Each structure stands twice: as C-alpha cells, then as structure tokens.
C-alpha cells in the first residue's frame, strides 16, 4: 500500500520533471550552438594547425560548452536525488542547503507562470542552520509548499525564502510571495499533508497571512499584497 507521502511525491516528480525538461533546453541549446561555432572556427582556420587566436577562440567556446553541460548535469542530478531520496531517516540537516535544493527543483517548474524562486538578501539570513529532521520528507513538503504558491501570484512574481535561527535554536524558514504587478486574488493555500508532516517532525507551519510587498521600481504604483508562511523546525540534536 502506497503511503500518502509517496503518492504526493510521484505527483511532485511529474511536475518538477516537466519544468526541468523545459529548462534543459537552455544549456543543451547553448552547448549545441557553441559546438557549431567551434567546428566552424576549426574549419575556417585554413591551415593544418590552429593559430593562437583560433585556439583561444575554440577554447572559449569549449569553456562555454563545459559550463552549459555542468548546468544540465546539475538540473538532472537534482531531480534524480529528489526521486531516490526516501523519507524515514532523521538526522541533523542544514536547512539553508535544503532550501537551496528546493529552490533549484521548483524554479524551473514555476518559471512558466512567470514566477521565480529566490533567497532573500537580508543581513539576518545565515549560511548554516541545523535542524534534527527527516531531510527527504522535509525537502518534499517544502517543494509541495512552493509549488502551491503560483495560484496566489496571478501576474508573476517571486517566492522568496529566508532561513534564520529562532528561539531555543529552532530553525525558522520565512517564505513570502511577492507579486510584481497584480495583487494576490487567492490565498497561498498550505496543503493539509504538508502541515501534518511538519507537526509530525516536531515543527510547525502557520497559515498564509497577507503581507504588503514592495513591487519592483517602475512596475506599478499600486500597493501590492503577497502571502507569508512561517515554518519552524526543531533544533539540531547534540547526541
């Protein structure tokens, strides 16, 4: 019998893969384009040996191909790691790194709705915040939470996140939707199984609450409203 968490995960893999397939076009196209240019540069060199200038040019193209290939590899590695990770093991987890992975998994999927996922630049943000949590389950439900955001950002915008330390060394994740030019018409709804999973892990999650946001300069003069969700995770284990 498949567990509800596993059933949700299959659905998430489908949604993430769809965004990923679209996103992979980018680096693949880059690698193909620079391959064409590199071959042309070699064909047009006209002598058995490449001049220093031609060598530099081809090397530059190969560097671009390598960068694009690494980007493609990271995209596919992200979904592979997500697919194979099985909930059930609790350990100390750096939640900042976990949120980075959630960002990379969800950003391609929400991009088609003109939404970007980004870490908030804020002095109170930290690089390491360890929680004793089920990393696989935590990643899954955070992915689900972010993928639930687009309905509340009708005209495009951002989902920004920030990790900080709370009271008693608990770890807090602040997630805010920031519309660019249209105020939210529907709520950022927190799926029930996401809420229950956080509670099962010894954490909690608030309901989404309306929050004023500053639209990008020049985009609109009207005041916009986004949604804020706060997640609390248990502190690290010292055992």
């Amino acid at each position: 019998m498949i567990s509800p968490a596993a059933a949700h995960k299959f659905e998430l893999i489908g949604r993430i893969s769809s965004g990923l397939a679209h996103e992979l076009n980018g680096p693949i196209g880059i690698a193909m384009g620079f391959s064409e240019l590199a071959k042309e540069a070699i064909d047009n060199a006209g002598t058995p040996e490449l001049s220093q200038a031609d060598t530099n040019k081809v090397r530059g193209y190969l560097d671009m191909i390598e960068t694009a290939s690494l980007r493609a590899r990271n995209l596919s590695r992200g979904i592979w790691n997500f697919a194979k990770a099985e909930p059930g093991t609790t350990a100390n987890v750096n939640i900042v790194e976990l949120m980075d992975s959630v960002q990379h998994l969800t950003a391609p999927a929400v991009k088609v709705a003109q939404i970007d996922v980004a870490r908030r630049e804020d002095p109170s943000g930290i690089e390491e915040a360890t929680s004793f949590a089920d990393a696989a389950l935590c990643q899954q439900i955070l992915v689900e939470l972010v993928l639930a955001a687009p309905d509340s950002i009708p005209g495009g915008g951002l989902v920004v996140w920030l990790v900080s330390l709370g009271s008693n060394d608990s770890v807090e994740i602040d997630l805010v939707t920031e519309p660019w030019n249209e105020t939210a018409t529907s709520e950022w709804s927190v799926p029930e199984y996401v809420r229950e999973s956080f509670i099962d892990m010894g954490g909690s999650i608030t309901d989404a609450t309306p929050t004023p946001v500053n639209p990008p300069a020049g985009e609109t003069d009207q005041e916009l409203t986004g949604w804020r969700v706060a997640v609390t995770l248990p502190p690290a284990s010292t055992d």
Partner: protein
Amino acid sequence: MVSRTETNSPGLRYVSIADNLQRQIESGEVQNGERLPSQHEMAKQYGVSLTTLRSAVDLLEQRGLVRSSHGLGTFAQSPEPGDDNPQVLLVDDDPQVVDLLTAILEGEDIAVTSASTAADGIAKLEASTFRAVFLDLIMPGGTGVELLKAVERLKIKTPVILVTGAGDTDLINEAMDHGPITLIRKPVRVKQVRQVLEVLGVQKQAKA
C-alpha cells in the same frame, strides 16, 4: 526611380525584392526622401502580387530603409551614418544565451548591447536605435510581452525576434497581438540566427 533587377535568389520572392530595393536605396540610385512608385506599379514591375509587394515594403520598413505615410506613399530613407556596424539589442535573463548570440552576431560584425530584464531592454530601446531586438519571453520582473507593448507604444519599427522555448504558446500568442515578430525556438541554432539576420537585412553594409 526604381529599376527592376532580376534576382536569382532562391529565397522568398518578397525578400529578394526587398534586397533589390535596398541595394538601390543604399547605392543612391533611389535618393533619400524620394517617393517610390505606388505599390500597384511596383507589383506590376516585379511581376508579383500586391500582397508579395506589400510584404517586401514591410520588410524594408523594418530595416529602416523606407517610411510609409498613409495617403502619401512610400519614401526612401538612406541608412543613418554609423549604420555600417549595425547594433542589435539582446534581451535575455540567461547570460549563456546572451553569450551565444553575442558570439554569433559579433562573428557577423554586428555590435551587441544586452539587457537582462524587459524593463532594462525598454530603457535601452528608448535611448538608442537598434537594427533588431532578440527577445526572450520568460524573464524575471516581467515578460518579453512588456517590451513588445513598449515597441508598439513608442512606434519603434525595429524588428523583434522572439527567442523562446517550447511550451510558451500562450505567451507567444499574446506577443503576436503586439505587432509582427519573427520566432526562433530554443535550442538556438547558429544557422537559423544567420538566416534571420539575412532576411531582416541586419548585416554589416560591406557584407550585405
């Protein structure tokens, strides 16, 4: 005076007619400000339908070589000084796409200016004249459609080439509501970019 010159170009008929008229304008055979014959007359001269001839005139207008005034006719415009090295605006949030297009365009002696958001692209379009705009559709802070709306509002004749991935169909349809566009699907192929540059006449004068 516009002279008909036979072209053996295997390409589209309206493109070869536009190329032929472009050569006459650039060589001075057709003077700056000179009124071209009526479109009916030119269609007859070239032995093509009025629709084909209109497509050629539209293309020349996109190339900035003629201007049409309703009820008055179509007038030749000499290329502006400095057009020997045409400038192209790239609007894309992916720096590697910008790098690839820059490498292709610079290989054709075309100068490149880039912008990573639609708002930045609009600001650059307002500040300078470009021979073409390569535009991504999905970008943070606003879609490429915002830039197309600005092109329409500012009555800019610069041709826009949408460079976009599959799955953006709704946005492409929305984009098409804001004037003529040329579409290049990602992954971008070098040959395809060069073909578009050729059709739009965006090349260094010596190479054209």
